[in-house]
């Protein structure tokens, strides 16, 4: 059983705020969905990743990419050609 406290914790891990009034609905739906996922307990064997997929190497050649202006064109705030972000500390 997932509790409301667990859901709040997952929200913090995922960096998604949850409003008080949303907690109950998320908790109920999480429990219902996770209960369905329990069917996976019966699965035997291991996942072996992409069969037949091979690593593809290429020469490390410089090619044209987006300009700095293009990359910054959708940013909320920029400063001296950089993104402005909230403070970390």
């Amino acid at each position: 059983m997932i509790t409301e406290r667990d859901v709040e914790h997952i929200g913090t891990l995922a960096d998604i705020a949850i409003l008080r009034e949303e907690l109950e609905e998320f908790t109920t739906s999480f429990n219902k969905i996770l209960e369905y996922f329990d069917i996976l307990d019966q699965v035997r064997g291991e996942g072996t990743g992409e069969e037949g997929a091979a690593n593809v190497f290429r020469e490390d050649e410089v090619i044209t990419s987006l300009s700095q202006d293009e990359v910054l064109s959708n940013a909320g705030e920029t400063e001296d050609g950089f993104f402005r972000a909230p403070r970390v500390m």
Partner: protein
Amino acid sequence: MAGRTLSFHPDDRFHAFLRTVPDPAFGEGRLSGMPVAVKDNISTAGIETTCASRILTGYVPPFDATVVSLLKKEGAAIVGKTNMDEFGMGSTTENSAFGPTKNPRDETRVPGGSSGGSAAAVAAGLVPLALGTDTGGSIRCPAAFCGIVGLKPTYGRVSRYGLVAYANSLEQIGPMAADVPHVNLLMSVIAGYDPKDSMSLDAPYFHTPSMDVRGTRIGVPEEFFGEGVDPRVASVVWDAISLLERKGAEIVTCRMPSMAYALAAYYVTCMSEASSNLARYDGIRYGPPVDVKKPWHEAFQERRREGFGIEVRRRIMLGTFALSSGYYGKYYAKAQAARQNVRKDFQRLFTEVDVLAGPTMPTVAFRFGEKSDPLSMYLSDILTVPANLAGIPAISVPCGKVEGLPVGLQIMGRWMEDERVIDVAYAYEQGGGP
């Protein structure tokens, strides 16, 4: 003759489009002057691309997705961006942050999803061709519900470069149109190798559909007609399979035991991938900006709460949970084992038969609000997710009606045999299908 433009002013009463381009340019080529609608999770340079999410409101990509470049190279006119479930998360298009799309066949019903806008635009006759994306059925479900044709290509055959990522190991861009020849035409334009997609296959698609199915072995897994499948839908689909038999195909009933775990495996996988992919929405590089004066986590959490809809937040959180320490083995690792079993089942079946057939969806189009419980909506994807788990091609082609609503026949083929699923669908379409 470069520099020509089209006039595009559709009567969009079903809300198929999130935005249209009134005078799109077009050039010379195989699609010269043909209007093409593009799902809103595919990047279009200079045209706002939101994935039907508030968190990308105002985002104008500085580049075209590879498929869009290919369309333009063949002269197509990009006429607009179609509505969808937010980030592709849904099977009804009701999860769009900008309001649902209506089903042109019955306005009280959903068009299916998540590529519901693309399917509705084609079904309403607004465009002859549309691009959709299919992570667990998002092309085939709306194609079935709206009575059009939609192909999920073999994983890797169409470049994902410029597709806004949701679940990388499952999703493919694919063609949607009113009939098989148009789907075939659009597929021939968008398929091909792209060094910008690390999973891209060097397998261009040049094919003329054949309606000759004599000797084709069609497998029909019992599980595709199991619990939850409306018996009236099952009966219409069996009639379609019988028609193929009369045209010379051989019908073989078979079993696919891994189906029991396919849906859970699919949802654990796509949620896990989504939780990682959607971490990029921080309000710093694109979308409505964060308040940079606030501390990082506070600003970030607030922006994401406001920007994402309920279903997107649910999937990000469940994915985070499934990947978290102590639960990874129970959920993600088991899901990958189940996925492997689905692949093995298909491999075994495809040594005995050439294609597999069944219904695309267990029912006809839902009424609005009918699938408000998330798990009950997930369960409706049971017949489409296996093809994504295995990376094989699958098509939905209209095969009749139940109470006036379209039913889709799904044909799945061997890895890299997109041509064969096209042929079987074409044989049905040309063979006196509705």
